[in-house]
């Protein structure tokens, strides 16, 4: 029982990352009709926003410390962050410690700008082209973005820790009356789950309760009619692309402390996110979220050693297996709409 609870918890957490990325993908697909293979790269760039912001906060000047020697026996060069001089060492260290949550403020405008440039600069020219062309160009773009990040940050993962206050894990087991240590879960992952829930809620609220959202939903249902009503739907869709990029970016920012960011982390998520979108139903936002959590939980269960002993290797194929079953039984996915990708 405790093992099952633990994997549900873990699956919810994993699913929240899938759901966030898939949500952005679906937003872009639902509005612009573009299959965006560069979406994983946006997630990765989000994580690197956290890395960049941390680096900016620790921007330093070098002083020579004659009392200490470096590995070659020369006087040691010590980096002193400028922030220590501006706000004092204690406050400076506290700000550096909170770099990841603070970088959300940095990531939102950066990601919206990147999304805007991507859409206006490249993807716009592919709206009327076949999906295969869109996939090729966005996949190519993803590789370019990856290589750009690698050029500046190297191939090694870069540690980007969460604030010290979130170190360690919460003991659910003790709370629920199980033995201590049977159901523990890291604080930061709980924060991630909460954060994902807030972002998903905010996106739905934005689409549901604002005029802008209403127009976008109308555009998603029937773009032509909305256009005929004199509404510039293209402009709104461009803004939606920016928002989708920001959602992927924020998912990446908060993910940075979970796994040290590296340049190919986007690709690791991309394929899974597409499976999530397809299982959820192309173009369906609630479907993407539901499938994200569902597949996250299934993946967690498949990694349990009891199940692995029963069916070896199931952890590597479970997601695709479920995708096949769902597509065979419900070809439009869990919550897919009629007519999407069926023309």
């Amino acid at each position, binding site marked *: 029982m405790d093992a099952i609870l633990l994997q549900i918890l873990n699956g919810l957490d994993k699913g929240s990352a899938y759901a966030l990325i898939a949500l952005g993908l679906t937003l872009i697909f639902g509005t612009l009709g573009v299959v965006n293979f560069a979406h994983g790269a946006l997630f990765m760039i989000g994580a690197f926003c956290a890395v960049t912001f941390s680096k900016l906060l620790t921007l330093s000047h070098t002083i020579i410390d004659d009392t200490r020697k470096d590995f070659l026996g020369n006087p040691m060069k010590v980096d002193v962050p400028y922030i220590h001089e501006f706000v004092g060492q204690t406050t400076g260290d506290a700000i550096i410690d909170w770099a990841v949550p603070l970088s959300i403020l940095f990531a939102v405008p950066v990601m919206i700008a990147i999304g805007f440039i991507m859409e206006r600069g490249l993807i716009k020219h592919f709206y009327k082209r076949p999906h295969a062309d869109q996939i090729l160009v966005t996949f190519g773009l993803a590789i370019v973005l990856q290589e750009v990040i690698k050029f500046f940050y190297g191939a*090694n993962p*870069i540690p980007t820790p969460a604030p010290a206050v979130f170190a360690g894990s919460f003991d659910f087991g003790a709370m629920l009356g199980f033995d201590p240590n049977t159901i523990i879960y890291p604080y930061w992952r709980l924060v991630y789950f909460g954060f994902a829930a807030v972002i998903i809620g905010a996106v739905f609220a934005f689409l549901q309760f604002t005029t802008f959202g209403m127009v976008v939903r109308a555009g998603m249902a029937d773009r032509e009619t909305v256009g005929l009503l004199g509404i510039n739907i293209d402009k709104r869709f461009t803004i939606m692309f920016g928002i989708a990029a920001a959602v992927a970016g924020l998912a990446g920012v908060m993910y940075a402390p979970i796994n040290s960011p590296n340049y190919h982390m986007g690709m690791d998520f991309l394929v899974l996110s597409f499976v999530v979108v397809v299982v959820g139903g192309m173009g369906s936002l609630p479907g993407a979220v539901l499938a994200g959590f569902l597949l996250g939980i299934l993946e967690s269960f498949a990694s349990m050693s009891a199940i692995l002993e029963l069916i070896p290797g199931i952890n590597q194929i479970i997601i695709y297996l479920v995708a096949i079953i769902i597509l065979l039984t419900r070809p439009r996915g869990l919550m897919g709409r009629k007519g999407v990708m069926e023309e």
Partner: protein
Amino acid sequence: MSFSNLTRRGLIKTSAAAGAGLALPTYLSAASHAGYTNAPQGDTVTLGFNVPQSGPYADEGADELRAFELAVEHLNGGGDGGMMQTFSSKALNGTGILGKKVEYVTGDTQTKSDAARASAKSMIEKDGAVMISGGSSSGVAVAVQALCQEAGVIFMAGLTHANDTTGKDKRANGFRHFFNSYMSGAALAPILANEYGKDRKAYHLTADYNWGYTTEEAVRSSTEAFGWETVNAVKTPLTQTDFSAYIAPVLQSGADVLVLNHYGGNMVNSLTNAVQFGLRDKMVNGKKFEIVVPLYSELMARGAGANIKGILGSQNWDWKLEDQLGSRYSGTNAFVQSFGTKYGFPPSQAAHTCYVQTMLYADAVTRAGSFNPCAVVEALEGFEFDGMGNGPTLYRADDHQCFKDVVVVKGKENPENEYDLVEIVEVTPADQVTYAPDHEQFAGGSLGSCNAGA
């Protein structure tokens, strides 16, 4: 079949293709008169450095390449000579190899066996490389070693830790200076028993590929010999990035030690995840929970940041060896000095092994008086040397594996900089990590005989 479509143009094309095909073996054995593949012509000799220049191990590859460049510089008489000053063999004199200036070409392994074979093949066939070295994975090492055997050139392995490289996949033309999984297990086990006690329950997470299996087997058998119990061993996909689903059940299993048989990016992620779960703050079975990483890579450890604090693991070499443990490890400071002066930071163990392998090859050629691979094999087999940073070392003739001390390290609590992440706990002497050539973990396969190609 009909010949009605045969045209004059078609006939010429076919003849040209057939002619090129017939000429190919001649091209491949252009140096046949010398009796071996790629015999150096003129006053230069070309070495091929096959390292990951793209992909997740690109930074490690870059460090290997730095070491190779430094080795070539020293061989040609440039710089301060590095380890040539401390190497027990005095055959090298800074005039290249056998008086021929050393030149090099590089290939990108991408840490993929097929890409590594393709780049090695190109360096051998197009650039005339007489020796191939480098690499950052056992899969690549085994693949390239087999290719070099077929082609008739020497392979001086880079970073490869799986037993199989000098076990079931050993080849007469291949040599490994780096240590292996068995040695890690044998070196770590007594120290683990000493630090954490003999009554421990271990849970293994193992990367699902060849290196993972041999490392798990080595650590399991060595620790079980000291009384540890292995409660579970779970294989994790090589492509896994989030290990939470594998780490979450560890505490439930009653284990009090987690062994991460992971390398590189896998290690960074699994260790980071394990520390996030607060495993190291827990008390299980009345003991503090511990994590062990059998093979440390200081370059990749940087990616795990503060999470490596207090974690035990093993290394082939560490740049602080001579400073901390004295002149037995002479050569270390000479190498660190020339590497540090040229590049501004201390070398990694990957850089060290690549530098040493290049020097050992050059020395063997010089002692043999020939670039002929079979002469080089003979010069390296059973070769005992010192002054290359690891203490007295033997290149065993039976399997072409180097036997030397193994460094046991621990993640430093208060690192002074990003190059000072580990502290040396102890050095396990070579005789404690030496095994019989027919040891079960190395069973199967044979060296065969050397191939000079051509």
